[in-house]
């Protein structure tokens, strides 16, 4: 359980995190979303005591991280893959980390096997690919078999097999009753992994809700209808809470009425339908709608 209350971080005149409050509960995977510069990483760094908050506070398992006498068994952290000395082997790094808590070398070998690093365990970390570095970071986070996992962009640089492994692994850990907080830019990945989503934008919490609820609230369910008699169908569908827009190529995008109701109505009027496709909103659409005004580094639309 991670509880942040009014967490704030200022760097000079810029406010990276602005009065953020949230609770990350055990037994589910909580996704941390937000545009670049939204304050996700800064918030994670404050959770584990690397950065001191300018105001507010955050606790893990009921106390400040810095007060823990056994941080590695309480919290596993992957902040970025580059938190490893490039001159040390993966095994050397993990042994040094394990030694602080008296964790035996047998556990080091376990996490090396778990993350698929056996072949490169004795290679210097500086020679690792991004994906291998990521696996090493995850291995370090798992050393103490922690109750809470905080993973910043864990699938960044991983191959598809690694991405799937991380997804299934964190879901498994959450099912065991552990607390998992992870950030990712990959919306499809997040929608498959997270149960609950916290969206940050410009240092503030924009949304904090179960995934399905968030998607439902910020997207519209639409039905794509293709018919040679588009005008007839449009007038047949006309109702106060139904909106019909031209989707091009003789297709209509209809919202406010279910696909089956459209089909029934068309049959009644003898209007032939060539396509009837219900489309539910995605996390990506919800995210885009939510963060529209909060994107700090916006790319130019391609005309």
């Amino acid at each position, binding site marked *: 359980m991670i509880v942040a209350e009014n967490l704030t971080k200022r760097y000079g005149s810029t406010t990276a995190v602005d009065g953020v409050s949230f609770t990350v509960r055990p037994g589910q995977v909580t996704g941390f979303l937000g545009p670049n510069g939204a304050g996700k990483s800064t918030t994670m760094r404050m959770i584990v005591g*690397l950065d001191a908050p300018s105001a507010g506070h955050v606790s893990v398992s009921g106390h400040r991280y810095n007060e823990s006498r056994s941080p590695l068994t309480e919290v596993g952290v992957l902040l970025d893959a580059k*938190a490893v000395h490039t*001159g040390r082997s993966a095994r050397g790094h993990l042994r040094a980390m394990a030694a602080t808590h*008296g964790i035996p070398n047998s556990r080091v070998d376990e996490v090396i096997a778990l993350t698929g690093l056996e072949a490169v365990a004795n290679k210097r970390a500086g020679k690792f690919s991004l994906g291998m570095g990521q696996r090493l970071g995850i291995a370090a986070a798992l050393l*103490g078999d922690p109750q809470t996992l905080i993973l910043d962009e864990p699938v960044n640089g991983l191959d598809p097999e690694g991405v799937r492994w991380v997804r299934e692994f964190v879901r*498994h850990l959450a099912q065991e009753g552990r607390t998992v907080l992870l950030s990712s830019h990959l919306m499809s990945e997040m929608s498959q992994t997270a149960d609950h989503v916290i969206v940050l934008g410009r240092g503030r919490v924009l949304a904090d809700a179960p995934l399905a609820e968030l998607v439902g609230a910020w997207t519209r369910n639409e039905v794509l209808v293709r018919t040679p008699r588009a005008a007839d169908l449009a007038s047949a569908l006309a109702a106060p809470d139904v909106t019909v827009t031209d989707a091009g190529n003789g297709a209509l995008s209809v919202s406010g009425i279910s696909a089956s109701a459209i089909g029934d109505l068309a049959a009644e009027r003898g209007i032939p339908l060539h396509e009837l496709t219900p489309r539910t909103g995605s996390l990506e659409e919800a995210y885009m709608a939510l963060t529209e005004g909060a994107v700090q580094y916006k790319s130019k639309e391609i005309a």
Partner: protein
Amino acid sequence: MSTATAPATTAPTAPRPAASTYHLSFARVVRSEWIKLLSLRSTWWSLGITVVLSVGISLMMAAALRDFDAGFAPVMVIVMPMQFTMLVAGILGAIAITGEYSTGMIRSTLTAEPRRGAVLLAKALVVMVVLALATAITYAIAVVATAPILTTGIDWGEPTQSILPLLAGVFAMATFALIGLGFGFIIRNGAGAIAATVGVLFVLPIVLSMFSFAGESWQWIVDLTKYLPVSAAQVATAAGGDDVVRGLVTLAVWPAALLLGAWVSLRSRDA
């Protein structure tokens, strides 16, 4: 990577019962720092260079001493290479911490042990012990190697002519490394910390001594020279010297002050 494809079988099935025995202790943090320092090639390179340089210079001095009597105690042949190896010690101390900042390792270190004072203390202890051991071994090799060359051997019956200057030399080398470590914690950047360390150990003595040509009114600057680590080390290691204690105290004050500054910096700044 076959294991990574089957999370269901390789994932821990239940929280480990032994987990409760895993917790921090200062001794464990020291052990971790010990593993960290000795698992880096740069450490072994630095120590190797120190040994070779030190023993080599000792042999040359011992040989030179055969041809003319420089009028100093034979034990100085063992201790005097410090003038050169001090830089290696200082640099080793500096990169012991700046390497963590440049690679991001410091974030792993401080999440494993969030009490930053303990990290600093453990690192200082390990750097000190490693340098002391390396110097002691270097001296032992140098003593054995120079023994056949020296016309007048080291007088082991007289501590001030033998063991005391050697112990002071061991202490001084550990001190130089801690000065580097202190600068490393404060400056965080490798090049900057090495520049500061070399500046204090090597450049400052030369600069200050230049004022000896400047006349009476500048004498106070020249007097400051004796409070520099290197001058203090020379005084402390002098065989039968009068100011050995003053030298040792001056030597101890430098790392103490720098590490205090390092502690303040480490505690108050974001990692």
